[in-house]
């Protein structure tokens, strides 16, 4: 296939596809967490359960 045809195809399909991908990735780009996301971590079972509750939960799982 001649280089000119490949270049034409890339221009025809490559540019719109690239533009769409850039748009998508810029939307999905991860950001620094909000304070509430940090505070969500306080709900982790290793922080919320007492020793006895964690022991009972482990026993129930086994």
């Amino acid at each position: 296939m001649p280089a000119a045809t490949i270049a034409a195809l890339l221009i025809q399909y490559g540019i719109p596809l690239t533009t769409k991908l850039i748009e998508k990735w810029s939307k999905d780009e991860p950001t620094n967490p909000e304070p509430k996301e940090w505070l969500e971590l306080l709900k982790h079972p290793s922080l919320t359960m007492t020793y006895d509750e964690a022991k009972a939960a482990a026993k129930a799982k086994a």
Partner: protein
Amino acid sequence: MKTITSAFLALAILFAGCATKQPPGRVALNATESVMDTVQASMDAWFAWVAIREAQIAELKKTDRGAALEQSMELLKLEGRVLNARSAYQEAAKTAIAAGAASTGGAGTSERVAAAAAQLINLVSTLTQK
């Protein structure tokens, strides 16, 4: 042709970089969560070990009540140590997370939580290997 290929390779590398790039705060948050999951797994292993010891003590009780009582007291002491270490981890982790929420990017939070978790995990590891 070579120029076109090179241009596309460069774009691919650029996109790959964009796709995997994580801001430091997000990395810190994920790392903190992983540390806490590790603590949870470590505690599950500890409780499994305690359950085995309790079963052994119950078996021993049938033949030697004195020795069983002694071992039971020893196990309670060990559980007390883990309970205290776990409480210390919880306090330290809660304080670090609250500070992380208040700061930009949660700098240092995962390190502080990891340091608190390490003490508990090390204790559990040491006790279960005895």
